[in-house]
């Protein structure tokens, strides 16, 4: 855990120093291009890597009643038998984290009065669901808000997002709700890993690193907006330059914090395709969710299905013919008469 924190701090420090000693061009121009390239190529490669392996078996997890007899209502959302149903299931999964919504917490009581002994009780536990959802949606909104820097003129929908986001009307510049919530959600996810014994036990450096990285990005972003303010107009010129492939940087007044923010974002982009963060495209590939539950109705074909090899009936009858005949079981071929008879 500490290593992950240190690495993030180190990256930030290097970016800061870089900006001080005049390496802005490296961190401001080279790194972003490299990062975006790595991100796109890396993700595409990962998806191709997955797609190269076939889906030999249809193994959807059925989360409710199958569609069978007419008088039995079936679970259209959790056990979808049609492509459209699967689409809805996936939308709910991706947009609402439906599986996570089911989450429960098991508590084992040693002396339950009803059981007169052990009893495991399952409490609904929606915290993880809530904060994950909060994190992902806030991140999305913050991401969309940043399009203000990428587009000229700024699309009106971004203005609307900003207006809603700043609805609290606190401070100047106005405080964006999502920024704060994003930080809260990240801190919750981090606290879970640190204070929940089970989570702590399974967590690896590769779990802490993206959390610290994201926290770093959010903190530096908040800093740029409210404290060590970036020169918005200059940032926009810089970013528009990048997006139009004619980067300008000399003469612009970009502060160190901005370079730190940018560098951390680039780190995230580079890290993304090589880490667990590929769960983002990955979920769409998940065979326990993205296949219809009509496996008895429509045959799923396995491209590497090996040839059939089994103990055939003729072999079986050859093995047991006499006993079968004696037991009066029907036979394909009658046993040969024994010579003595």
């Amino acid at each position, binding site marked *: 855990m500490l290593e992950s924190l240190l690495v993030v701090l180190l990256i930030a420090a290097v970016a800061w120093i870089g900006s001080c000693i005049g390496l802005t061009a490296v961190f401001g121009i080279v790194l972003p291009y490299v990062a975006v390239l790595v991100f796109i190529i890396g993700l595409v490669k990962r998806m191709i890597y997955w797609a190269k392996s076939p889906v030999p078996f249809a193994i959807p997890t059925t989360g409710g009643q199958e569609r069978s007899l007419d008088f039995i209502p079936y679970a259209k959302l959790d056990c979808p038998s049609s492509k459209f149903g699967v689409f809805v299931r996936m939308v709910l999964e991706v947009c609402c984290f439906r599986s996570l919504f089911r*989450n429960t917490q098991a508590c084992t009581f040693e002396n339950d009065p009803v059981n007169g002994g052990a009893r495991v009780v*399952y409490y609904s536990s929606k915290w993880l669901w809530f904060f994950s959802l909060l994190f992902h949606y806030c991140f999305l909104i913050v991401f969309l808000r940043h399009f203000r820097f990428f587009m000229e003129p700024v699309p009106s929908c971004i203005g609307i997002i900003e207006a809603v986001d700043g609805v609290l009307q606190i401070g100047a510049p106005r405080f964006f709700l999502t920024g704060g919530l994003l930080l809260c959600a990240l801190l919750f996810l981090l606290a879970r890993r640190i204070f929940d014994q089970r989570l702590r036990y399974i967590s690896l450096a590769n779990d802490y690193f993206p959390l610290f990285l994201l926290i770093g990005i959010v903190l530096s972003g908040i800093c740029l907006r409210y404290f060590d303010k970036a020169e918005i107009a200059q940032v926009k010129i810089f970013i528009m330059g990048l997006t139009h492939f004619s980067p300008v940087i000399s003469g612009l007044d970009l502060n160190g914090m901005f370079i730190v923010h940018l560098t951390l974002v680039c780190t995230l982009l580079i890290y993304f395709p090589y880490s667990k963060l590929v769960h983002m495209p990955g979920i769409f590939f998940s065979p326990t969710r993205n296949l219809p539950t009509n496996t008895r109705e429509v045959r799923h074909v396995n491209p590497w299905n090996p040839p059939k090899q*089994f103990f055939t009936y003729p072999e079986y009858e050859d093995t047991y013919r006499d006993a079968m005949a004696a037991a009066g079981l029907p036979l394909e071929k009658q046993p040969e008469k024994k010579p003595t008879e």
Partner: protein
Amino acid sequence: MAKLPSPKDLLASRPDFPAESWLDTKPEFAPGSYCYPEKKETMELLHMPNPHDWDPSAEDWNLPDDWEKILCDAFADRLAKHRSLKLFMDICVRCGACADKCHFFLGTNDPKNMPVLRAELLRSLYRRDYTKLGKILGKKVGARGWDKNVVKELFYYAYQCTECRRCSLFCPYGIDTAEITAIVRELMHEVGLGTHWIMDPVKNCSFTGNHLGIKPHSFKEIVEMLADDCETVTGIRPKTPFNEKGHEILFITPSGDVFADPGIYTFMGYLLLFHELDLDYTLSTYASEGGNFGSFTTFNMAKKLNAKMYAEAERLGSKWILGGECGHMWRVVNQYMATYNGPSPSHMTVPKSPITGTVFKNAAATKMVHITEFTADLIRHGKLNLDPSRNDHIITTFHDSCNPARAMGLLEEPRYILKHVCNHFVEMPENTIREQTFCCGAGSGLNTEEIMELRMRSGMPRGNALRYVQQKYGVNHMACVCAIDRATLPPLANYWAPGVNVSGLHELVANALVMKGEPKRTMDLRQEDLPGVEDDAEGGEDQ
């Protein structure tokens, strides 16, 4: 078998998490925590790779010399064959949502029984060979190389997972640890590691047609004895057609029901039901196994054992197959059979109930119908004369088996039937039933005696839930639709909720079934007196 600790001691003896990281701990092969290994001869007979003698508790497992290469190659091969594996290796975020969903974890508190860590055992190897970060940073990011202890660990935890898929229901990405376990077991088989309790039935099924190795003539004899018992109880001797050509339906059920108490009563239930309907069906001694222990070893073995079903339907000219109550059998039938061995033989037709005319469109490709779908439809159409009061002495609950629940969605049919054949039906707590059901603790080939304590641990969530309804509502019976359950739940109930009986659903159906021309019933299928029999001994006939 060692004496079991009391439930209290069992609970209290769950150790805390170890202080070291999971990458540094090793499993201890204490007696009772692992299944016995399979014999070399059996593995040879089945042409399994690298058969050898070994002992799980020994230091050296006598792995083949090039074991590491075999495993690395096999892993690469599985990654190339299964998108699910690649994906599940890549996208887990270690959110921990699956952690306390596993009955093995709840019962043992062993961190490696959290589905996420069970998968990490393999994922750590994947990281080293298939991810950039793992290659560069190694252990820091949870990557490690193969060594013999890792093999032991994989084996140990792959046989402490019943492939129940409860974790996959709760995982935000649907990561199915059962799939990973299945593939780890395949890998273990590549270096000749398998368990006796699984491989022996596989061998039997391969060469005699069923797990128990019952030969054709004995199979017939046993079923005829069961028919005699039916006659003792009902006064009617059901017919027992065997290997007969030209019948509309081929009936296949797990062989455990022919052989073991209390499954035999379920089997008697089938015989009586079919007789009452005058169903045009046949049994087969060749395809006399619905279950598929092959599915607990490798995909290919599952395919091989499953192939007999279509082959026999083809030979006998049956139009469709009716399948009995079983859990993993239906995982295979519902999600694998058509893929493995389909398309179904060309003469087979979309199943249609000859009694009600209902067409089972949901089985259009496999041509195989679950008996509870069939019976629920009969009841719906009023085709059965049922007297649920004959089951009035029981207050029953229903155990959803993992596979029908999470790999099929068969939830309502059994309940519909149960409510029509029993007047007293109580559900267990909601997080332990339906798609959230808990395993009996011994599925996927772990229903063996030598790990009884482990089974009682993994059965704790189910046992607790049963105990709860027993204490609160006086439940004294648990119905299920799985042959493994019928073998594993009685000891479980005995341990966690003594006094609860276990039976298949069709035992209760047959108990309630009023057959044409039957004399008044005085006993149930277990030949126990029906309640109130003495009271109205003088009360005259009721039909």
